[in-house]
């Protein structure tokens, strides 16, 4: 399946885009998504250990399987306030 991932803050700057696409074989777990993302966008490596993945507006664990059509986002630790 082709999935779109929104990127924010330093992840967006490093990747040079606010939204990227990956082709992945379903089912895809969050850990696999993160690996492929780092493989295809090596510029993201400074954030490798801290990248968070959100699936449908909720923080996702490594083992979470990404549902078809889910809204995905990937970003570093937050710093609002």
């Amino acid at each position: 399946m082709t999935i779109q991932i929104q990127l924010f803050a330093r992840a967006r700057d490093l990747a040079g885009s606010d939204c990227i696409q990956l082709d992945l074989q379903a089912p895809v777990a969050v850990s696999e998504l993160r690996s492929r993302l780092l493989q295809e966008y090596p510029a993201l490596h400074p954030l490798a250990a801290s990248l968070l993945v959100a699936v449908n507006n909720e923080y996702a664990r490594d083992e979470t399987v990404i549902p078809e059509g889910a809204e995905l986002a990937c970003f570093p630790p937050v710093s609002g306030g």
Partner: protein
Amino acid sequence: MPETQTVKLTHEPIDYHALTEQVRSTQSGAVVLFLGTVREMTQGRQTVALDYDCYPAMAQAKMQELLDEASTRWPVDRAAVIHRLGHLELGDISIALAVSCPHRKQAFAAGQFLIDELKVRVPIWKQENWSDGTTEWVHPGADEANLTVSETTLPNSGRPHHA
């Protein structure tokens, strides 16, 4: 009757007086207002401005989730939170959070919970514009060598708080 809960993202200056009025009611004897403002000095470095980025859909959902959680833990009458995005100068208000409860201890506790959790859960990021002309995203913990993303580091399951 006004909404009992308000969650908002804005690019405009925050009217914290109006926000405070939204949470006042005759049911509550205590109103706590928290303002976050752009500080000049951080560990000896000088800030000239901050830029805030946001994932709006998730930020709205997470802020609402926090208000709901606060209401299960304290007798919150009304609560309102508004976060400003974009370019902010020194002294500008980046966030205003107001909560009302029957008594002061509850209002202080709920307000403290809301701002502490907002800082670790809500997908908003600040970028420092330092006085030497450089910029730097603030990503707490991102440069800790051995940090791994696991259950213990997810923002909704007790990631350590950063000041």
